[in-house]
């Protein structure tokens, strides 16, 4: 059986366009297999990122028929192959070449966030931190993130409004939540979240949660609780008063 793919092609610095490739497909193939096949047989300079081919590294993010997805986890039999399948790079980031985008902004954002700062081991813990499984379940959910940046790609604050300089996006709200909720962490990120990272820009559309390949409940479990903490700190009159008194 044959299928047709329309793949975004562009040279560094140049404009781009979708190009059509028809290739033989077989049972069980995913979009990344098709891209590799086209690369090996028709167009060796077709650029794409990938590493694990098993949804574990978050390298192969793309927009397939307009949907942000991992190419390695999108089976061809889940797509309508009577129509050409479009494969495009993530649109919220500058394109380097073909399917490869410049995601370096994400790495810079992370560097600007406060790092993990654990408390000391307590005497009653006998030399090693104690944490109950139920107290780390939530943090472990957040730590499943494979940094595919699909949530960043789909968030309208970044994608449509280009607020990259002001807003850290769902991935890093999640990262902040993971540190804030870490049972051992002692630092405080609420002021940064409110003033520097502009958590307020998020209006809980939940688009990020919908595309997360790790099925992390980004909005419900991370962003909303963080927003609540920020609100408690900055808008609750009683807390505000207390802070004024205690400095």
């Amino acid at each position: 059986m044959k299928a047709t793919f329309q793949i975004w092609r562009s040279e560094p610095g140049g404009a781009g366009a979708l190009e059509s490739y028809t290739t033989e497909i077989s049972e069980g193939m995913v979009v990344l297999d098709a891209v590799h096949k086209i690369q090996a047989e028709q167009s060796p300079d077709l650029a794409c990122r990938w590493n694990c081919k098993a949804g574990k590294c978050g390298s192969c993010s793309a927009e397939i028929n307009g949907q942000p997805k991992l190419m390695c986890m999108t089976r061809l039999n889940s797509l309508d192959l009577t129509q050409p399948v479009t494969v495009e790079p993530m649109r919220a980031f500058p394109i380097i070449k073909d399917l490869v985008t410049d995601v370096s902004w994400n790495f810079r954002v992370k560097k600007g966030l406060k790092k993990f700062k654990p408390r000391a081991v307590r005497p009653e813990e006998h030399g090693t931190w104690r944490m109950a499984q139920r107290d780390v379940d939530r943090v472990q959910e957040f730590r499943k993130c494979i940094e595919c940046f699909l949530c960043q790609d789909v968030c309208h604050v970044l994608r449509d409004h280009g607020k990259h300089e002001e807003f850290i996006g769902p991935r890093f709200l999640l990262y902040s939540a993971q540190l804030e909720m870490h049972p051992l962490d002692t630092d405080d990120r609420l002021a940064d979240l409110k003033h520097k990272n502009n958590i307020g820009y998020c209006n809980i559309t939940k688009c990020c949660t919908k595309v997360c390949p790790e099925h992390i409940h980004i909005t419900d479990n991370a962003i909303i609780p963080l927003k609540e903490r920020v609100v408690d700190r900055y808008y609750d009159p009683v807390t505000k008063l207390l802070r004024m008194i205690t400095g």
Partner: protein
Amino acid sequence: MAAHATYSYDVLIIGAGGAGLRAAIEAAGAGVSVGLICKSLLGKAHTVMAEGGIAAAMAHNDDRDSWKVHFADTMRGGQYVNNWRMAEIHAKEAPDRVRELEAWGAVFDRTPDGRINQRNFGGHRYPRLAHVGDRTGLELIRTLQDHTIYLGVTVHMEYTVIDLILDGGRAAGVLAYDRERARFHVFTAKAIVLATGGVGRAYKVTSNSWEGTGDGHALAYRAGAELIDMEFIQFHPTGMVWPPSVKGILVTEGVRGEGGVLRNSEGRRFMFDDIPDNYKPQTASDPEEGWRYTQGDKSARRPPELLTRDHVSRCINREVKAGRGSPHGGVFLDIAWIKEKISDAEGHIKRKLPSMYHQFKELADLDITREAMEVGPTTHYIMGGIRVNADSQESTIPGLFAAGECAAGINGANRLGGNSLSDLIVFGKRAGEYAAEFAKKNRVTRLDDGAVDRAMKKSLEPFDRGAAGENPYKVQYDLQDTMQALVGIVRTESEMQEALLKIAGFNERAAKVGIDGHREYNAGWHTCIDLRNLLDVSEAIARCAIERRESRGGHFREDYPDKKDEFATVNFGTKRQADGTMTTYRIPLPPIPPELKLIIEEQKQ
């Protein structure tokens, strides 16, 4: 021809997997300038794929565990051709390295009393693997990555090192290109750490990503360093076999650790039929005892599915060859059966093995809580690599260090599951520490412009030949087919001699590969460059495998199916000679000190 840019560091680290990152942290902590180069984005290295866990004798789940038992297990797993000193350091230091990860933010699964939980794994006597579900590698790499970014280490992502350059016999720098623009970059350094991972891509069926092309092995070899133990490759018993596009992708040993069993097409648990004598005292006598072991019963012994990987792989191979395999040429791995034993089996499986559940559901349309998986051996790990000093990780070239999968010694003939992640952090740390020390003591190096120029020109030759040259992908596929068929799980002299002849032919073809298009992000060109590395490591594997005329650990010879005393005390080394050819020779094992020998003997009971 001029390079686009030059950089200079005290310590240059090549590779950002667990080993490279841990080395970077240590070197930066020693106050020297550190550069880090990797082929992919930060956090995407192969380490991210590790599933089962990190071995460290913390004795949280069984207080009988200690570094001594871990040491003895590692030596037995390696069939006693390991470097004893590395095995000792590893067993002693792994617990501290794991605790350190927790201090840097890692969140491992917990025991009921709130400590790091440890699970059973093949070849480990007691539950020893610190883990996070079945995504331990992600936890490890993310923790190290998130710690490193605050330390002032300069990271060059999506840069590939092409050649290692010496200055008066000492490691001096490297030539690299960046994927984005395909420009050349020259790096000079006082000390260099190779942490480039494995060589799985030399084979057709592998669990390794495209990065596993043996670059560090080949860079070191071409610069004149010694490699050892190259015949020892680990074929993991459980890779996916269906559908074809996912063939080779790993199914974690954790499935068997949680009670999964192997069956042939007749429904028989064939692993009970072949238990090696030296493992009999520690192996369950019936399925019931095996089940109790997986559920944490300390009086029970492990099921035979958890014997060492080389053995399980060969048993599977035998079942398939005897016509008792599954429809797609594997055997059945069944975890769904545990519903006979526990009430909420479905929830339990999903909780304990979430990414396996996910992987089969999405890639094979199969629900592992209901059906058995089909699995077969896949090329997974190379025990062999760059020969290093056990304490400092320095190679036979001054100023060149190596750590992680590209270094050799700790694993001997076979690596135990979980011993790689711990190896990365134990020896990554040491490599960083000693490289920094070396950098502080030694002068700045100088790179010979002529050598840099020649290396640049050579790497661009495929463009001169254009599309009229050999297709690099085709040569790579042919090499992978050859290694799979002739230097795979079961080996014989005549087949390996044939492989060597073929490799010579591939070398000739590789000298004629051509490529079209622009240089930027050109995967075809990258394949031309990788090919050289794959050919060098493949030849080293075949040559050493021919010389070891016995069967031991990951190396199985049909023509010499037994272990031989003659080979019990040697490693095989390989080195490049002045005329460019490869030589293979015996290196006597360093004698084990009596106190460690005693530990080994005690643990044999």
